C-alpha cells in the first residue's frame, strides 16, 4: 500500500539523490579553509542530530499509522477514544527538545565567537587586509598595504589569515565563498569584518548571494589562493606593470553593469570610502545620466522611466 511507503519516500528520495549528485558537488561540505571547516563540522553535527530526530519520528509515525488504521480486523482493545493526555509523556517530550536545543546551542555559540576572530592555526601571522566592495554587479577588491586593486577576482596567499573589510556602493550584497567560509553582508555606509583563510592553492567560486537586481546572478568573482611566493611575485608584478586606477575609470565602475576582470596598481580608497559615503555611486550615476530613482530631483518624484515622465506632463 502506498500509505505505508509514503513516510519513507522522502528518506529514500533523499538518499538516492545524495548518491546521484555525488558528494563532491556539495561544496559547502567540502571546505578548503578553517572557517568553512568549522561551519562544516557544525552543520554535520546538526545533520546527525536532525537525522536522528527524523528517524525516530518517522518510525513511530509509521507504526501508529499502520497499527491504528480502521479496518475489518481492527482490534477494539486498541481503541481508547477518551485518552486525553499524559502529563508524564508530555513532560518527556518537552525535555527532549530542550536538551537537543542546548546541545546544539553550545557549539553554535562557541563557533560564533571563534568566527569573529582570526583563525587559530595562523594566530601568529599578521592578517592581510583586503577591502571588498560590492557594486551592481561586480566585486572590487582593494589591498591598501600593497596599493593594488582588482575587480572580480581576489588573489590571496594560502595558509594566511585574510581580513576582509566588506562594504557596498549601492545595493545590499552578501559576500560568499562557500568553500572558504560563510557569508557577510556588504552594505553602503558600513564596513563588516570577515576573517577567511585558504588551506590549499586553488580557484574557488565566490559570489554575491543577496538579491541586487538584474545582474545579480552574474555578480561573481574568483577567490584565488596562491603559494605564498607566487602571491608575493604577483603583488610585485602588479605594482610594477599594471595601470593606475584613475578617477574616470573608477566612475565607470559605479554604473550598474557587469564587467570583466581588471587589475590596477592603486586603489580607489583615496577617491571614495564607501564605508563613509553611501551616496557616492548614486551621484556618479546621475552625472552619467543613468537615471534611476534619484534624490537629486527637487520634487523628489519617482520619474525614473520615460513612461512616468510623460504622464507627469499631462
Amino acid at each position, binding site marked *: 500500500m502506498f500509505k505505508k511507503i509514503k513516510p519513507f519516500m522522502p528518506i529514500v528520495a533523499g538518499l538516492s*539523490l*545524495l548518491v546521484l549528485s555525488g558528494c563532491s558537488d556539495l561544496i559547502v561540505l567540502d571546505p578548503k579553509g578553517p572557517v568553512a571547516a568549522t561551519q562544516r563540522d557544525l552543520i554535520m553535527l546538526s545533520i546527525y542530530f536532525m537525522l536522528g530526530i527524523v528517524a525516530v519520528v518517522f518510525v513511530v509515525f509509521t507504526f501508529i499509522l499502520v497499527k491504528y488504521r480502521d479496518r475489518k480486523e481492527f482490534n477494539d482493545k486498541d481503541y481508547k477514544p477518551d485518552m486525553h493526555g499524559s502529563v508524564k509523556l508530555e513532560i518527556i*517530550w518537552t525535555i527532549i527538545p530542550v536538551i537537543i536545543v542546548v546541545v546544539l546551542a553550545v557549539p553554535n555559540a562557541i563557533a560564533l565567537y571563534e568566527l569573529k576572530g582570526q583563525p587559530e592555526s595562523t594566530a601568529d601571522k599578521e592578517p592581510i587586509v583586503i577591502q571588498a566592495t560590492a557594486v551592481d554587479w561586480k566585486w572590487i577588491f582593494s589591498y591598501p598595504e600593497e596599493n593594488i586593486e582588482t575587480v572580480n577576482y581576489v588573489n590571496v596567499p594560502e595558509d594566511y589569515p585574510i581580513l576582509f573589510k566588506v562594504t557596498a556602493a549601492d545595493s545590499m550584497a552578501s559576500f560568499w565563498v562557500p568553500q572558504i567560509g560563510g557569508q557577510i553582508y556588504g552594505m553602503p555606509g558600513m564596513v563588516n569584518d570577515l576573517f577567511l583563510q585558504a588551506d590549499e592553492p586553488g580557484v574557488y567560486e565566490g559570489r554575491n548571494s543577496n538579491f541586487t*537586481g538584474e545582474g545579480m546572478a552574474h555578480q561573481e568573482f574568483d577567490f584565488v589562493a596562491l603559494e605564498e611566493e607566487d602571491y608575493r611575485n604577483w603583488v610585485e608584478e602588479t605594482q610594477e606593470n599594471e595601470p593606475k586606477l584613475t578617477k574616470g575609470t573608477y566612475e565607470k565602475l559605479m554604473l550598474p553593469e557587469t564587467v570583466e576582470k581588471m587589475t590596477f596598481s592603486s586603489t580607489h580608497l583615496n577617491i571614495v570610502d564607501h564605508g563613509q559615503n553611501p551616496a557616492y555611486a548614486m551621484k556618479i550615476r546621475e552625472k552619467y545620466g543613468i537615471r534611476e530613482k534619484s534624490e537629486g530631483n527637487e520634487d523628489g518624484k519617482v520619474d525614473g522611466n520615460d513612461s512616468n515622465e510623460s504622464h507627469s506632463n499631462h
Partner: protein
Amino acid sequence: MIDFIKDNLILDDPLILGANISILLTVIGIVFVLTYFKKWKWLWSEWITTVDHKKIGIMYILAALVMLFRGGVDALLMRAQLTVPNNAFLTSDKYNEIFTTHGTIMIIFMAMPFLIGLMNVVVPLQIGARDVAFPYLNSLSFWSFMFGAILFNISFVFGGSPDAGWTNYAPLAIEGSPGPGINYYLLGLQISGIGTLLTGINLIVTIIKMRAPGMTLLRMPMFTWTTLVTAFIIVFAFPILTVTLALMTFDRSFGTHFFTLTGGGNTMLWSNLFWMWGHPEVYIVVLPAFGIFSEVISTFARKTLFGYKSMIISLVGISLLSFLVWVHHFFTMGGSAAINNIFSITTMAIAIPTGIKIFNWLGTLYKSRIQYTTAMLWAVAFIPTFVIGGVTGVMLGMAAADFQYHNSYFLVAHFHYTLIAGVVFACFSGLVYWYPKMFGHKLNERLGKWAFWFFAIGFNVCFLPQFLLGFSGMPRRVYTYVPEDGWTLLNVISSIGALGMGIGFVFIVYNIYYSFRYAKRETTGDSWDGRTLEWATTTAIPPHYNFAVIPEVKSLDTFWFNKQETGKKEKVEYKEIHMPNNAGTPFIMSALMFVAGFGLVFDLWWMAILGGLGIIACMVIRSLRSHKEDEGFHVSVEEIKKTEQSFHEEA
C-alpha cells in the same frame, strides 16, 4: 490619459499579451453571463453586500484559490526557466518580477485569505455564535483585501510588476527600482493589510465575547484557539507593516529619507522593520494550520485531542517567541557574536513548543481508529513533511551555520517545507473537511486522493533536491546558472516535482466542478460524525442565523458527547432572532481605496485625493447613519419554524 494608458499597458511580451487577452475575455464572459441570466442584482444583494460570515468566508476562499492558481503559474514558469542551465525562456527582469509576485501573492493573497476564509466560515459556528462580532467590519475587511489584491495583480499587465523580492529590501526597492512596480507592492499590501488588521480585531472580540453559554476558554475547539492567538499576533504585527510600508511610500513618492542610500537614510532599518512583521507573519499563517490539523486529526482518529492544555500552552509560547526571532533573517548583517547568539537561541527554542505539538498529534493517533479520508491524508502527510521543515529550521537557526545556508536553496527548500506542508496542506485539508458545511455536498474522495498523491509526492520531489542545491552553493533568486555549476540534475528533478504539484492542483479544481455536478447532497449538518459545534447545525448548510437555538456547552468536544448521550429530544422553543443588515458601503469604500491606491502608484495626485476624500465621505456617512442601519432585522419565529421543519422532513 490615452497616452498614460498607452505607456503603461504592457503589450510587447507574448506571455503578458496572452494574459491581457485572457483577462479581457474572462471579464467579457463574466459580464455576459451575469447580464444574460439577469444575475447582477443577485450578485449585489446576495454576495457583494452580504455581511454573513459564511458567505464572506466563501468569497475569501474563492479568491485564495484564484491566487493559488496565479502564484502556481508563477512557480511553474520559474521552474521551467531553472530546469536547464543557460535557459533563455525568461529574461532576468521577468524572472525577478515573477519570484517577487509569486512570494508576495502566495503569502499575502493566498495563504492568509485562505485561512481567514476558513476562520470566517468555521469559528462563529464552532463557538455557537450567529455571526462575528462586527459583521459590517467583516465585509470591509474582505473587500479591502480583495481590492488590495486586485491592485497588486494588475501590475503585471499595467505598468510592470514589483521586482525586489517579497522582502522588498531597501535601497534596491527605492533607488534601484524606478517605475511603478514597487508602488504597487507598497499600496497593494497596505490596502489589504487594513483588511487583515480589522479581521484580527473582529476575531478577537468574536471569540472573547460571543461564545455560547458554557463554552469556557478551556472548552474551546483547537481551531478557535489557534484563531484567537493568531488574531492577537495580527493585531500586534500588522501595525508594524502599515507604518513600514507608509515610510517607504514617503521615500518613493515624497522624497523623504528613511531607507534611502542618499540623504542619511538607513537601509538596515527596512530589513529590521520588515522582519519584525515578517516573522510573526509566518506564524500568522502556520498557527491556524495547526488548528485545522488538530480538528481533522481528532475527528478522523475518532479520539479526543491528546494534550489539549499543552497544545494551548505551546501555542501561546510560539506566538510570544515569534516576536523575538526576527534577526535570524539577517545573521549575516554583521551583528556581534552575542546578538547572533541570543537570536539563535530564541529561534531554536521555537522547536520546543513545536515538538510538543508534533508529539501530541502522534499521541492523538496512538490508540485511535484512523479513517483515511482525503482530509485526513493531508493532515497525516503534514506530520513527517513538517518535521523536515522544522529540523531544517533549527539548522538555519544556528547562526554560525546559517552563514552558509543564508540566501541559498537550502533556505528555499526549508520555507517551502513549512509553508506548503504546513499551510497549503492545511488549507486543502480544511477545504475538504468543511466543504459540506459551505456547499452542502462533499468533494469526491477518489479525485481528492488523486490530487493528494500527485501533490504530496510532487512536493517532495520538487523540494528535497533543493536542500542539496543549497549545499552545492546555489543562491536563491538567480534566474540562471551555467552547466559547470553542476546544479542541472537536481534542478531537473525539482522541476518534475513541480509539474506533479501542478497536476495535483488541476485535480482539485476539477474535483470542485465534478462534485458540484455529481456529488450526493448532504442531508444532515453532521457530515463526518464530527465533534465540535459547527457540525451541530440542523441543516447541511447552516441557515443565515446558524443556530435556531443557541447550543449549550458542557464539555470539550461537546457535540460528540451530546451524541453519545442519545435519547430524549426536548421540545425546543424558538424565539425571534436579531440579524444584521446587508451593507454596500464596505464595497464602495474599498473600491475607493483602490482608486486612491492606484493614484498613488502613478503619482496621479488628483486621483489619490479624490479617492481619499471618497473614503472619508464613506466614513462620515456610515457614522451619521449607523444608528439606523445597525438596527438590523428580526427573523420571525414562523420563518425559523419553516426553515427548521423543511430540514426535518428531508432527513
